[in-house]
């Protein structure tokens, strides 16, 4: 298998180099057979990467511990589901995963892009091949080859880190990888547009859905990462501003900015330079995230083992940045806006400031992430930049962004009149004030949550108003029932109303995040039968009674399960179990040997209002006397709900049909082109 795997990697490298060199040489122009060779090289690269991946999976499933990667990340007693996810658990395997998924996306882009964009495709093939070649080369030449063999064959592997033995880890990393990797396709289209000088909106229409795919994967991946951190790591939160978490947020923020600003380019022919810069910047940030994760240059709980692989990524990052922005600079004069902004109070201007804020937040996160390095370089002093810093800097920006989420859709395109603004803002502002007043009456005094929930009321008002007005218009025009009018409204304007559903997801996220300001924590040591009371932020009283600790063997681990009886306001409310797990592998003598540190499985009861979150910290002196941490975490369920709403809205937005971009462009042009003339003709 290793021979086949190595052969496949070399084949991928050579096919990729062929495709990239031929594409960038431009020799395919006017020679269809050469252009075909370029695009076919993409399929060949995918086939070779797929063979290499199958070879690695075969080695993992066959427990071939002579392969160093298989030995390092699996064991004979590893549950079969995690044998599958071990593929991307380590540095080397994840590089191969990256290469195979990128080559798959590159092949799909070639196969699925309509023929009218054919002049762009050889360049797209060249860019995707070049990026794939980089990943394959890193595997082959930087000591990160997943097919490296050990000089002997161990009886068993070291096993998979217990924290990675969680269902979340089977989907969270692939989702993030899919997000990161698919960014390459929009980037390839942007570079293709610049190289071919076809700088109309064609490249945007060709890649817009890819950008949405990437944005959605990354958004869902980030949410799944929060879920995994919450249920597996046991610290009771879901976001810690860790450098690797930050690195995943950065491209998501710039992609979100792009998804807004691209509407201005499509509708008005503006912001062409900015949009190209954003696409290039997003790709660079995805490579930067990979550099952070794999170099060890910034301390992170998520990082792979420190290795020289990161420096390959740094070099790649610099080369791509210089080449891309130089290319953009040479095309600068061709990227003049078709029209000018007509008013500061317009949706275009609102989108512009929303973009500024998205990029500003991305910058502040990047700045905070890199500031320790900068500080050490300038002052020679190591400092830590943790959650207190990020919260101080980013919470105000986040609130401003939440406000713009509500403001943007209320302002008319081109120029809003005072009358229009009054009509549009009355209900949302009213709903925001009402929510704030109710919360103050209920005794909420903390400023940040109060502002967040008040703004959430405003944004909710905006979204409700948009849906209601659209639905009402359909009811009046077509006499449809409310559900049918709503369904058709969304179905025929998927991009717009899918976008509003995504705004709703953001609102739900913010509401949930603010809830954590009221988290309650209590540590207690309990003998069997002893109880402790914890007051919920909603005013209820939980009584937790320690039942006892049972121990048993399960799969590849010993489990110590501590059981707690829960009573809510004196009424029995079931039991919650939290566990300590000690994993083991089988050594050369055939006996069990502890592997890794003991891990904790949190006991969670999730509810719409609050989560009861119990961590069994350990036993006192080997007895059943247990040390617990009890958390009452408000509104956490809504974070996961936000993830589902985001997914739903994203899918609606990118679902095929519902009006083509070309049609909407013509529609927009027709509308704008005649408005002024209509006004001149005296039509009221």
């Amino acid at each position, binding site marked *: 298998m290793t021979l086949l795997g190595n052969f496949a990697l070399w084949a991928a490298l050579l096919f990729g180099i062929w495709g990239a060199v031929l594409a960038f040489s431009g020799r395919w122009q006017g020679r269809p057979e050469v252009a075909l060779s370029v695009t076919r090289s993409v399929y060949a690269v995918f086939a070779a990467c797929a063979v290499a991946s199958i070879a690695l999976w075969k080695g993992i499933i066959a427990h071939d511990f002579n392969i160093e990667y298989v030995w390092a990340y699996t064991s004979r007693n590893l549950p079969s589901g995690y044998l599958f996810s071990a593929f991307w658990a380590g540095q080397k395997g994840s590089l191969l995963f990256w290469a195979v998924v990128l080559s798959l996306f590159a092949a799909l882009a070639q196969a699925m892009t309509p023929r009218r964009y054919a002049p762009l495709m050889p360049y797209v093939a060249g860019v995707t091949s070049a990026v794939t070649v980089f990943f394959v080369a890193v595997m082959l030449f930087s000591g990160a080859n997943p097919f490296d063999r050990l000089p002997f064959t161990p009886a068993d592997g070291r096993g998979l880190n217990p924290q990675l033995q969680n269902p979340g880890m089977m989907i969270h990393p692939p989702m993030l990888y899919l997000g990161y990797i698919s960014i390459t396709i929009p980037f390839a289209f942007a570079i293709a547009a610049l190289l071919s000088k076809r700088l109309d909106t064609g490249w945007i229409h060709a890649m817009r859905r890819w950008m949405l795919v990437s944005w959605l994967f990354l958004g869902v991946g980030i949410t799944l990462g929060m879920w995994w951190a919450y249920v597996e790591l046991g610290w009771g939160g879901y976001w810690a501003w860790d450098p690797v978490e930050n690195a995943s947020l950065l491209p998501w923020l710039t992609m979100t900015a792009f998804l807004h600003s691209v509407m201005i380019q499509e509708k008005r022919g503006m912001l062409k330079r900015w949009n190209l810069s954003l696409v290039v910047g997003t790709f660079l940030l995805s490579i930067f995230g990979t550099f952070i994760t794999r170099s060890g240059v910034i301390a992170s709980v998520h990082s792979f083992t420190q290795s020289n692989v990161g420096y390959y990524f740094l070099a790649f990052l610099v080369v791509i940045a210089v080449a891309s922005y130089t290319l953009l600079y040479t095309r600068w004069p061709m990227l003049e806006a078709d029209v000018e902004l007509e008013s500061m109070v317009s949706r275009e201007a609102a989108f512009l400031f929303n973009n500024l804020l998205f990029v*500003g937040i991305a910058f502040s996160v990047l700045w905070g992430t890199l500031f320790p390095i900068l500080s050490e370089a300038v002052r020679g002093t190591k400092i830590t930049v943790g959650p207190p810093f990020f919260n101080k800097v980013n919470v105000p920006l986040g609130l401003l962004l939440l406000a713009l989420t509500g403001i943007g859709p209320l302002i008319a395109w081109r120029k809003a009149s005072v009358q229009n603004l009054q009509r549009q803002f009355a209900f949302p502002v009213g709903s925001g004030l009402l929510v704030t007043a109710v919360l103050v009456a209920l005794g909420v005094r903390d400023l940040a949550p109060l502002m967040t929930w008040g703004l959430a009321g405003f944004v909710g008002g905006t979204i409700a108003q948009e849906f209601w007005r659209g639905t009402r218009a359909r009811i009046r025009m077509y006499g449809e029932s409310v559900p049918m009018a709503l369904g058709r409204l969304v179905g025929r304007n998927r991009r717009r109303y899918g976008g509003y559903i995504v705004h709703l997801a953001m609102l739900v996220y913010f509401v949930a995040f603010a809830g954590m300001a009221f988290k309650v924590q209590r*540590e207690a040591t309990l003998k069997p039968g002893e109880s402790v009371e914890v007051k919920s932020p909603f005013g209820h009283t939980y009584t937790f009674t320690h039942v006892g600790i049972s121990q048993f063997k399960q799969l590849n681990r010993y489990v110590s399960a501590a059981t707690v009886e829960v009573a809510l306001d004196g009424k029995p409310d079931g039991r919650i179990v939290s566990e300590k797990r000690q994993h083991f592998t089988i050594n050369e003598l055939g006996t069990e040997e502890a592997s890794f540190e003991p891990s904790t499985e949190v006991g969670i009861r999730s509810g719409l209002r609050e989560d009861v979150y119990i961590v069994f910290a*350990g*036993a006192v002196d080997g007895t059943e006397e247990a040390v617990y941490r009890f958390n009452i975490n408000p509104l956490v369920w809504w974070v996961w709900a936000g993830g589902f709403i985001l997914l739903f809205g994203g899918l609606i937005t990118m679902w095929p049909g519902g009006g083509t971009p070309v049609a909407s462009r013509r529609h927009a042009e027709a509308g704008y082109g005649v408005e002024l003339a209509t006004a001149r003709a005296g039509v009221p």
Partner: protein
Amino acid sequence: MHRRAFLSLQQDAVASPRAGQGDVGTLFNPDVAGRPRAPTVEGDNDVVVRNTELRLRCSCGCTLDIFTCRTTDFTCTYSPALHREILALFAEGKTSEGVIAAFVDKYGEKILMAPKPEGFNIAGYVVPGVAILTVGGIVAWIIRRRVRMSAERAGDLTGERAAAAATGTDDELDRLKRELAEMEK
């Protein structure tokens, strides 16, 4: 049957006395139940202590603060020791700021979860905001300038476009109005 009602029935069915109630039994195999723990002390739940620990970094290399590290997975040996050190400093009568100052003296500035806003560190706090405000100001200025120029150009073309529009029929103008209404939604 409602889940809670079902659970309470189950609970009633448990033999009395309930499992584990009474004397503290010993574990079958204490070696697989994680690190042995000392019983909780009063300071473990003190809000001032917790808030102080949230501002100090654990030195085990985990990048977490002391409170989060010592209550996460409970495998770190550094954070419980640092916690005891903090409790001892509070017992000496130090305030939260005093404890933090003592930690900075002993472990250096890197023990803080966020740098003090002084000297070069101020740049860390203000640069993002200043950058956003500066760029925002420049963007606003450019927009205003272009809006003005655009308005001036539109004024020059008024007569020409009005003439063009005047050639439209009533039906065409109605259709244009509908288009505009659609766009304004």
